[in-house]
C-alpha cells in the first residue's frame, strides 16, 4: 500500500514531533507530579521562550553561534519569569481547590499572551536554522533534516538526564519525596518552599528551551501557546500525569498516532489524538505509566 521509505519518513516525522512535545511536556508533568498544579501557563512559557530566542538572535545576529546563545538566554529568561510567578502568585494557592489553581494559571495565559502581542506584535516571526545543522541526509530512502535529528537526540538526552537527576541525585530524592508527602518532608526539615520554586524554575526552563528550539522549524505566531498546551496535556494524560517516563512514552505514542492518523483518517488526525486522550482517561485515568493518586 505504502512504500517503506514513505512510512519510515512518517515515522521519523512522528518521532521529531514526539521529542519536541517531550521537551515541553516533561516540565508540565514534573510540576503536576510534585506540586499538584496543572499549569495552563506552561504553553505560554513555551511561546515566550520562542519570542525571547527571536529577540536574542536579532541582537546577537553578527556573532558566531548566536542561535545557541540565544536559545540559552531565552531558556534562562523564561526560568527567571517562572521563578517570579511561583514566588509572587502560585505560592498562595497550593492546597486550594483545583478550580482556583486552573483559573490562576489561565489568568497567566491571558496576560502573557497579550504581553507577547504588545511587545512583539502579531506578525509571524522566524529564525533561520543554525548553519552547522542546515543540511539533511537519507535514511532508508527517507530524508531526515539534520536539525530534526538534533531535536531527537536532545529529547533523549533530556530524558536520560532527567531520569538520572530524579533517581540518582539528592535533589531528585527530595523531589520524589515531595511528590509522595509534602508535609512529612517539611516536618523532616527540608525546605519545601525552595524545592517548589526550584521545580517550577526547572520546568519553566524546559518550556523556554523547547520554545527557543522550535523557532528554526516553526514560525512564531500568537496563539501558539493555547495550541501547544493542549498537545502537552494530551501527552501527559497518555503517559500519566506526574510520571516522567510516562511523559516520554506518551510523547512517542502521540507523535506516531498523529503522523499515521493522517494516513488512515485524513483530516481527522486531530480527532484521533483527542479520542486517544479521552479513552486513556476513561480506562486508566492515571495514564499508561502513572500511579493512581491518593
Amino acid at each position, binding site marked *: 500500500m505504502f512504500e517503506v521509505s514513505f512510512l519510515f519518513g512518517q515515522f521519523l516525522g512522528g518521532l521529531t514531533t514526539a521529542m519536541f512535545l517531550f521537551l515541553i511536556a516533561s516540565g508540565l508533568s514534573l510540576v503536576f507530579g510534585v506540586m499538584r498544579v496543572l499549569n495552563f501557563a506552561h504553553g505560554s512559557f513555551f511561546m515566550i521562550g520562542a519570542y525571547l530566542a527571536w529577540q536574542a538572535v536579532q541582537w546577537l545576529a553578527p556573532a558566531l553561534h548566536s542561535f545557541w546563545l540565544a536559545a540559552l538566554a531565552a531558556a534562562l529568561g523564561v526560568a527567571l519569569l517562572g521563578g517570579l510567578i511561583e514566588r509572587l*502568585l502560585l505560592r498562595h494557592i497550593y492546597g486550594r481547590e483545583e478550580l482556583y489553581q486552573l*483559573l490562576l494559571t*489561565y489568568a497567566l495565559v491571558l496576560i502573557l499572551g497579550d504581553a507577547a502581542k504588545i511587545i512583539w506584535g502579531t506578525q509571524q516571526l522566524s529564525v533561520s536554522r543554525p548553519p552547522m545543522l542546515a543540511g539533511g541526509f537519507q535514511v532508508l530512502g527517507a530524508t531526515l533534516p539534520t536539525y530534526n535529528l538534533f531535536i531527537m537526540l536532545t529529547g533523549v538526552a533530556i530524558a536520560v538526564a532527567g531520569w538520572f537527576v530524579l533517581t540518582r541525585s539528592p535533589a531528585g530524592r527530595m523531589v520524589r519525596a515531595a511528590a509522595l508527602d509534602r508535609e512529612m518532608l517539611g516536618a523532616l526539615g527540608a525546605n519545601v518552599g525552595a524545592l517548589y520554586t526550584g521545580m517550577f524554575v526547572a520546568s519553566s526552563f524546559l518550556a523556554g528551551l523547547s520554545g527557543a528550539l522550535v523557532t528554526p522549524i516553526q514560525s512564531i505566531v500568537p496563539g501558539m501557546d493555547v495550541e501547544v498546551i493542549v498537545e502537552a*496535556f494530551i501527552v501527559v*494524560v497518555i503517559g500519566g500525569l506526574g510520571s516522567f517516563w510516562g511523559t516520554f512514552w506518551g510523547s512517542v505514542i502521540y507523535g506516531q498516532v498523529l503522523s499515521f492518523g493522517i494516513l488512515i483518517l485524513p483530516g481527522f488526525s486531530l480527532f484521533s489524538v*483527542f479520542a486517544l486522550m479521552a479513552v486513556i*482517561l476513561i480506562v486508566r*485515568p492515571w495514564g499508561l505509566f502513572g500511579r493512581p493518586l491518593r
Partner: protein
Amino acid sequence: MMKKSAPALVRRIPWVLVVFVAALTIPWVGSRYDTFLATQIAISALFAMSLNLLLGTTGLVSFGHVAYFGIGSYVCGILMKTYAVPFSIALPAAAIGSALGALVFGFFCVRLTKIYFAMLTLAFSQIIWAICYKWNDVTGGDQGIPDVPYPNLDWMSSIPLLGDLRIAQQFYVLTLIVVMLSLAAIQRIIASPFGLMLTTIRENPERAASIGLNVRRYELSAFVIAGGFAGIAGALFGIFNRGVFSDFVYWPKSAEVMIMTILGGIDHFWGPVVGAATLVLLNQEITSYTQYWPFVLGTILLLLLFVFPGGIVGGLTTGLEWLRRKTGRRASA
C-alpha cells in the same frame, strides 16, 4: 421586627419576573446598540447559569462546558439554515442534542474526580471542536455555517408595540422569553429536593454516598441538565451571531464562561447573571480603547482570585452583612 420580615418579603418577590420585565423595556427605552448588548448578556447569562449548575451547585469543575453550547448552536444552525426547519422545532432539538451529548460524555466524566474530571471534560470538548473544525460536509469546517436565518417572528407583528420593532429587537424579546423561562426552570431545579441533593454532594460526596445517594447518577443528571441549557444558549447565540463557527467550541471559550460565572459569584443564584452582564459590558467598554482585552481580563481574574474569591455578589453580600452588623451594633449600643 421589621428587620426580620424584610428578607422574607424580599425572598417572596419573583425576581426572575422582575428582571424579565425590566429587561423587556430595553428595545423601547434604549438604542439599537443597547438591545444588541442586552441580547448578548441574556444568552451569556444562561450559558453561565448552566455552568454554575455544575460549578456552584454540584461542585463539578467542568473545563469543557463549551462543547454543549457548541452542539446546541450547530444543531440549531444546521437545522435552520440547511433544512429550513422552524425555530420552534430547532431550539428543542438543540437542547435535546446537547443533553444527549452530555449524557454520553458525562457518563464517563462522572466516574472521575477533580483534575481528571476537568481533563476529561476538556478532552471531550476538544473532540467536538475537532469534528466541527474538520467535518466540512456537515459543519462547514473552518468556514462554519454563515447566515443562519432569524426565526419567523411574524406572529409578533400582530401584537401592539412589538410589531413596530425591527427583527433584531424582536429576536431579543424572544431570547429574553426563552432565557427567563430557562432561568426560572433552573431556579426550581436548584430549590427542589433534587437540587438539595446536588448541594449535599458538593459539600461532602463521601457522606452523600454513605447515606445511600447514588452520587454518580445525581452528578450525571446535573451534567445532562446543564448541557441541555447550554445547548439552548448556544442555539440562541448562533442566530444572534448570524452564523455558527468552530471557535465557539475551542477550549478557551470554556475558560471564558467559567470566568464569567466566578466573576459574578458561584455561591449565589444571580451570580452568573451579574458576571455575564459585567463581563459583556466591561468588554465593550475596554475594547473601545484597547485591543488588549485578554490582558485586562487576566488581571481582573487575578484580582478576583486573590482579593474577592466570592465574586461580585459574594463581595456585596459580605459587605452588606458587615454594614448590617455595624449599624445593628450602633443601634443597640
